[in-house]
């Protein structure tokens, strides 16, 4: 009798309410009246399980749900407990929507990402290593070639811009950047000497590297005496030393580095321009010529090259 009442109320509720809830309730009510399909224990137990989620009017009054006639919308999971069958299927569906399937998908994506990154990293590392090896080989080859050319093997004896005699021996133990030029040079020598100054300043900043000694040797001993050199070098790096001497001394030094120098025709002032090799030479602390830099190399490239030479330098 009570159940019939409920069914009627349920129908009313259906019109305005949640279909699922009411149909669920209807179903449960009918289940109650018929034989219970649950396999667990006595008939009383499942009933209570079913009914605990509903309005207490239909069947046992359980302290769990002191709600109104219609009760709250019964969440199927609340009645999970020991139940199986259609309910468990439903709950399974619920968990599937946010459950293990997406987490495995996430794991798979993560693993794939990690594997790709590792692989990519490995490739990059290998490429970088091979590139470094190649560069090193290149450098060693170049050094071998330049050693064969064997510039700067001889000795020189010149006067510096303060009038002191200097020989090649005086500069052993330091890295030397050597430039041949003349003070009456219109633009090239000042530019190259500015470049040398910039290189030396850059390398000075790195305390781990030994100091580089810049040298300027004149190819115009007729005009470039000690005083002229002194006036000239002070416009450049403070450590720059100017070197001059008699024409013979200067010729010996130039020949050592196979420097070409040819004074041009004199004009009415007696002024002339000396055509000469425009190169900056790098000499290591053992007095060996290691490298040269032409007009195309800027100060950054030269500094980098010197740094590499210093790093790979092995004392004889």
């Amino acid at each position, binding site marked *: 009798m009570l159940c019939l009442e409920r069914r009627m109320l349920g129908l009313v509720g259906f019109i305005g309410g949640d279909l699922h809830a009411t149909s669920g309730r209807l179903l449960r009510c009918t289940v109650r009246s018929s034989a219970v399909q649950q396999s667990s224990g006595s008939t009383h137990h499942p009933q209570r399980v079913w009914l605990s989620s509903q309005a207490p009017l239909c069947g046992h009054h359980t302290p769990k749900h002191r709600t109104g006639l219609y009760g709250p919308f019964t969440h199927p999971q609340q009645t999970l407990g020991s139940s199986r069958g259609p309910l468990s299927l439903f709950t399974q569906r619920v968990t599937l929507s946010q459950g293990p399937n997406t987490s495995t998908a996430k794991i798979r994506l993560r693993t794939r990402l990690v594997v790709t990154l590792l692989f990519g990293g490995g490739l990059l590392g290998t490429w970088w290593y091979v590139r470094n090896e190649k560069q090193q080989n290149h450098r060693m080859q170049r050094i071998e070639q330049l050693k064969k050319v064997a510039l700067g093997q001889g000795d020189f004896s010149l006067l510096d811009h303060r009038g002191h005699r200097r020989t090649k021996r005086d500069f052993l133990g330091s890295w030397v950047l050597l430039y041949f030029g003349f*003070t*009456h040079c*219109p*633009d090239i020598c*000042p530019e190259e000497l500015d470049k040398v100054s910039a290189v030396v300043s850059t390398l000075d900043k790195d305390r781990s590297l030994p100091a580089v000694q810049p040298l300027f040797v004149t190819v115009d001993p007729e*005009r470039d005496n000690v005083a*002229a050199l002194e*006036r*000239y070098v002070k*416009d450049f790096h403070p450590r720059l030393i100017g070197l001059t001497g008699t024409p013979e001394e200067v010729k010996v030094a130039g020949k050592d580095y196979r420097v070409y120098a040819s004074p041009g025709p004199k*004009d*009415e*002032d*007696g*002024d*002339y*321009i000396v055509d000469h090799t425009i190169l900056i030479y790098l000499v290591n602390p053992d007095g060996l010529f290691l490298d040269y830099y032409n007009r195309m190399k800027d100060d950054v490239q030269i500094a980098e090259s010197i740094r590499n030479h210093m790093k790979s330098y092995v004392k004889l």
Partner: protein
Amino acid sequence: MSAPNSNQRKACWGARDELWKCLDDNQDNAASCEKFQKEFEASCPAQWVKYFTKRRDFLKYKEKMQTEGFEPADGPKESQS
């Protein structure tokens, strides 16, 4: 005659640059740039004037080669045998 010092060099280069800019603007018409020419010659030693003038000629020639193309000169003509 002592070599120009750093300031004198810079003054000379400045005057040269002014002159070259004027010549560039006037399609190398030397007449319109006489003022700069005089300034240039006053700031620089004679040898440098000559040197920079030749340099400009060379740069213009190089530019022409690069833009207009280059026609190799005819080799020695075949001798009539």
